[in-house]
């Protein structure tokens, strides 16, 4: 889902960076506040970031005969909220842009928007929405992680379609083409991410009840 260095027109790069910047700032402030008020969740925050690190490094084969990687953002978004996850994603995207030539600095804003903002907001909304609709937390986090992952790739497809509309069929036609590349490939990977996130959730429920309770209170107070 990483749009590569130099593969978005300058105006698009600036626009996506401007759209993403406020979320990074909000997230950084929220992290500072959460860590100051509840230092006991600091290690879980690091572990959630570590989960993004692991999953976004795993390039997995898909039914389409091509490879892609999950995002790993659904866990952090469900636990800490979406803007905290924006910061974690930005760190991973920066690591990959600088050391792996994967993604890029010019496209960082666009990539933060898909992986660090839309995906986490979808995951956060689904996790808390499905839970208040009466579903179990494990089922809720499965859908949160799976659809958060998928939505990131849908956003990337549209970002590319806006930048490169098809000469004949326009933005919609280009979106269909990019969705054909990204979205279908991503379906089994997104399900894998959902399943793995349930595994981590189960472990958290067993060993980290105190932190989960603290975070549940936090998330009721502010998104």
């Amino acid at each position, binding site marked *: *889902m*990483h*749009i*590569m*260095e*130099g*593969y978005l027109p*300058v105006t698009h790069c600036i626009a996506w960076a401007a759209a993403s910047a406020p979320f990074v700032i909000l997230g950084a402030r929220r992290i500072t506040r959460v860590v100051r008020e509840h230092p006991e969740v600091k*290690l879980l925050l690091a*572990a959630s*970031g*570590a*989960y*993004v*690190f*692991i*999953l976004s*490094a*795993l*390039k*997995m*084969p898909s*039914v*389409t*005969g*091509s*490879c*892609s990687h999950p995002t790993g953002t659904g866990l952090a978004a469900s636990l800490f909220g979406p803007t905290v996850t924006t910061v974690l994603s930005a760190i991973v995207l920066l*690591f*990959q*842009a*600088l*050391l*792996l*030539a*994967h993604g*890029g*600095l*010019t496209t960082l804003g666009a990539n933060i928007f898909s992986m660090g903002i839309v995906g986490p907001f979808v995951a956060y909304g689904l996790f808390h929405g499905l839970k208040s609709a009466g579903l179990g937390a494990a089922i809720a986090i499965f859908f949160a992680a799976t659809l958060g992952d998928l939505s990131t790739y849908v956003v990337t497809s549209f970002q*590319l379609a806006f930048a*490169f509309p*098809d*000469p004949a069929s326009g933005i919609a036609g*280009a979106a269909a*083409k*990019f969705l054909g*590349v*990204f979205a279908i490939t991503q379906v*089994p*990977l997104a399900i*894998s991410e959902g*399943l*793995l996130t*349930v*595994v981590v959730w*189960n*472990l958290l429920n*067993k*060993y*980290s009840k105190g932190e989960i309770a603290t975070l549940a209170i936090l998330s009721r107070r502010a998104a």
Partner: protein
Amino acid sequence: MMKRNLLLLLAVIVLAVGPLLIHGRDGAEFTGSDDQAEAMITQIQPDYQRWAVPIWEPPSGEIESLLFALQAAIGAGLLGYYFGRRRAQSEAKGGSAPNALQDAVH
């Protein structure tokens, strides 16, 4: 819980190995979707001029996989440290340490 987690992990393995079996003989190349998107851009707009290149690129595929493995290893190390620590704490609090075998059965 451990049994359920093992089943979930098994499902992930099936999802990862399945595509390799499905495309076992049709010559699928399993290239990255990012590269395919790049090819799609060139197809839609052949005259697009890439205006920036990465500051540094891994000199070979091996170095690239080294760095990807490093990324996953950092993450896995930290996650493993977290759960190891929490497990030790919950055992210390709970008095008698539940052993791994019991965990696997329940």
